[in-house]
């Protein structure tokens, strides 16, 4: 049961991080509107393999919009044209028969290309390792209901915690800034009582690590928020900036 859409794809091909890449053109036929964007790539790859060509490498795992692994820059927009949707949850009914679709990897100095559409986002892990946690060893915790948390705070913290670490915010930003990602984690913990003891130290270390990784500055254009598949709000950046300033004052 296949469909009847025929599309032209221009896809970034790059052998490895040291080689130069280029856009290659492919035609795909009989695409069903019920396919996901990645399933359309599966169809293309199957064809390439049958023809004896190399399939296109791309990252993906859950295909449910939650692991943050998929990462395609589609027609100039990270995760494609729909708001609030990851590449794996984008379906072909969002496109029309005859469309030309350009697919590139995330582009940022801090995210070097590994191959084709796969990039290295380990900078994000290092930022979390620099302070994105509460220092509590296993077994140190007291009864969970001993820490009542106002529902509104819990809900706002949860909204920030919904970040999937995909990096679309960086890819969307003309400066390749990681502020939205970093502020989401900083905010989540700053909003909760558990996060208070390390609150100011955390923001300083994480921002420090972010700068070290080579992400750009934030100039408040808001492209990150518009492209974030999880609706992470710009207000997190404002909150982080306040904490960062407060931390600076405190330490001087």
């Amino acid at each position, binding site marked *: 049961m*296949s469909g009847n859409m025929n599309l032209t794809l221009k896809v970034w091909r790059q052998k*490895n991080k040291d080689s130069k890449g280029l856009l290659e053109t492919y035609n795909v036929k009989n695409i069903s509107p019920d*396919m*996901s964007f990645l*399933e359309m790539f*599966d169809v293309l790859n*199957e064809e390439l*393999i*049958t023809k*004896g*060509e*190399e*399939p296109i*490498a791309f990252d*993906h*795992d*859950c*295909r*449910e*919009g*939650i*692991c*943050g*692994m998929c990462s395609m820059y589609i027609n100039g927009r990270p995760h494609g044209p729909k708001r609030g949707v990851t590449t794996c949850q*984008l*379906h072909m*009914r969002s496109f029309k028969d005859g469309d030309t679709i350009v697919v590139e990897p995330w582009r940022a100095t801090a995210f070097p290309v*590994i*191959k084709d559409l*796969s990039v290295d*986002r*380990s900078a994000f*892990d290092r930022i*979390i*390792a620099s*302070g*994105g*946690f*509460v220092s*509590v*060893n*296993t*077994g140190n*915790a*007291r009864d*969970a209901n001993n*820490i*009542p*948390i106002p*529902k509104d705070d*819990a809900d706002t913290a*949860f909204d920030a*915690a*919904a970040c*999937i*670490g995909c990096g679309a915010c960086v890819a969307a930003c003309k400066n390749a800034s990681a502020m939205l990602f970093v502020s989401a984690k900083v905010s*989540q913990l700053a909003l*909760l009582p*558990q*996060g208070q003891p390390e609150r100011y130290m955390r923001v300083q270390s994480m921002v420090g690590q972010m700068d070290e990784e080579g992400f750009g500055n934030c100039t408040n254009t808001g492209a990150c928020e518009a492209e974030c598949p999880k609706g992470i709000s710009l207000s997190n950046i404002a909150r982080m900036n306040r904490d960062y300033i407060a931390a600076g004052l405190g330490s001087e």
Partner: protein
Amino acid sequence: MTSSKIDAKIPGGSLEDKWTTYRSTVHLVNPSNKRNLEVIVVGSGLAGASAASSLAELGYKVKVFCFQDSPRRAHSIAAQGGINAAKNYQNDGDSTYRLFYDTIKGGDYRAREANVYRLAEVSGNIIDQCVAQGVPFAREYGGLLSNRSFGGTQVQRTFYAAGQTGQQLLLGAYSSLQRQVGMGTVKMYTRHEMLDVVTIDGKCRGIIARDLVTGKLERHFGHAVLLCSGGYGNVFYLSTNAMGSNVTAAWKAHKKGAFFGNPCFTQIHPTCIPVSGDHQSKLTLMSESLRNDGRIWVPKKKDDPRKPADIPEDERDYYLERRYPAFGNLVPRDVASRAAKERCDAGYGVGTSKMAVYLDFAFNTKRYGQVEANKRNLHNPSEEEIIRLGKEVVKEKYGNLFDMYEQITGENPYEMPMRIYPAVHYTMGGLWVNYNLMTTVPGLYALGEANFSDHGANRLGASALMQGLADGYFVIPYTIGDYLSEEIRTKAIPTDHEAFVEAEARVQESIDKLMNIRGTKSVDHFHKKLGKIMWDKCGMARNVEGLKSAIEEIRELRAEFWKDVRIPGTANEFNPELEKAGRVADFLELGELMCKDALERNESCGGHFREEYQTEEGEALRDDENYAYVAAWEYMGDSKYELHKEDLKFENIKIAQRSYK
């Protein structure tokens, strides 16, 4: 009688005291020795991340491996509905014993009592730990934690974070893990795949891993190795698991001497989005929590052409409520799945394929709307107002799931019922482990979904997250001491030891063999075929003829794979097709063992439904006389396996036919 080759090492004493006594008498390793002991953890999901961070906190030197680009992307991230714990915060009669009882019964009396009791005992600590880490669980207006119900229980003991519980728990464990990475006590290897375990003098001493970016093989030594590599539901090709979930780590261990427990126990989840076409690459779960508020039905009339909203109440068959009045829509998964299959097979299915049933929220949306209107002191609200308010409540509870449903199907579940059908979801089977979570290979452990231990023949919803975190945070930090306290004199073994050299050579050989086939068909081609055989013959219903023919078909398919698979590119670069090929090669062996296990078990229990063994009402018919055991399979060479049995004793629970009526 239990085979002499396995010893579950269950501590003595009464059920309630076993774990406490064990913990206070188990051998310890002193802090200065811990620094010299190295532990390898394969997997960074809930089990792996929690184990690795806890062991590093204790002072062990830890290395963690995962095949994704970040430990935060392990498949646990996708868990939706919730995590159980016997906190009794709702004051509704919950207790350690009740959670134990529900789990043993839910598992259709095929799990080990001592392990399950321990799981129930530590469940509360998990919630405490996660909250301390900053996991934003759902809360009530009073600021305290909220609970919901899951299938197979009559209390509310499930903690949750909207439909993203796994994500929030994993991010908690991941942040603890990254904290240790930052401190240098854990070394993280992302985009690495373990391809063999290395044994020296009968003990596990390390692994061979492939760097997936460069293709280089690496040797890593460890005094102990923990496999936290997840479940193998993808043997069916289509499942709710992430695309990369696989059996390779467990299977390689199996071939090195670790017995495989109950391989045929697979969980088919009742509420998933139905298959929409041949292009389908995976199936998407709609969390069990939806059954709290959604009612399942089909039309009473076959091929009813009307829209669901136009079918009046008395022409709908709420078949779960009809068949199981005591538990209704909240019967366990195996029961709900079979009931859906029964209705569809009988011709009452809905949608274009007729292989779906409705999951309808209209009733509860209205109920919530009314409650909300009362809360807000709205007098005489209109029907529309009530529905609008109700939808808000439903959105807060399940918003992300509803959005996902709409993305995938193009239909709005706030306006019309979801169409759902069962799909492969979880594997209760896995590496056989003793009470210490050690496999039959000394020094090799299995945690989380990768082991067979706690769920018997059917897992209750929200219990996998609980088990993964129990194993990692609260069990292994103690039980590993029992082994490592004997290893303090073992110096790190250099990886030029012949056992490492040999193991690496064998892995290289098998990669070369795959690359050199240069056949004509893609890996997916074989994977899809295997999946179809498994689903048709070793899926929701199984019988002797089907299983026998499945074994033959799998053997043929495997032979064809090794003659005709095509893997493009080379082995010394980033090559996702090669990764898939290795995994499918292992699935092609595992599939056969699953069928063999299903064939051997002449009874129906939990998710294992043998058509020959059912009651008149179509319920699973267990045979406790002959099959109250764990099947632990030993690998004896190509397609040869020997069965060892671990007898299950039920001393603290009355074994009975499971009834949810």
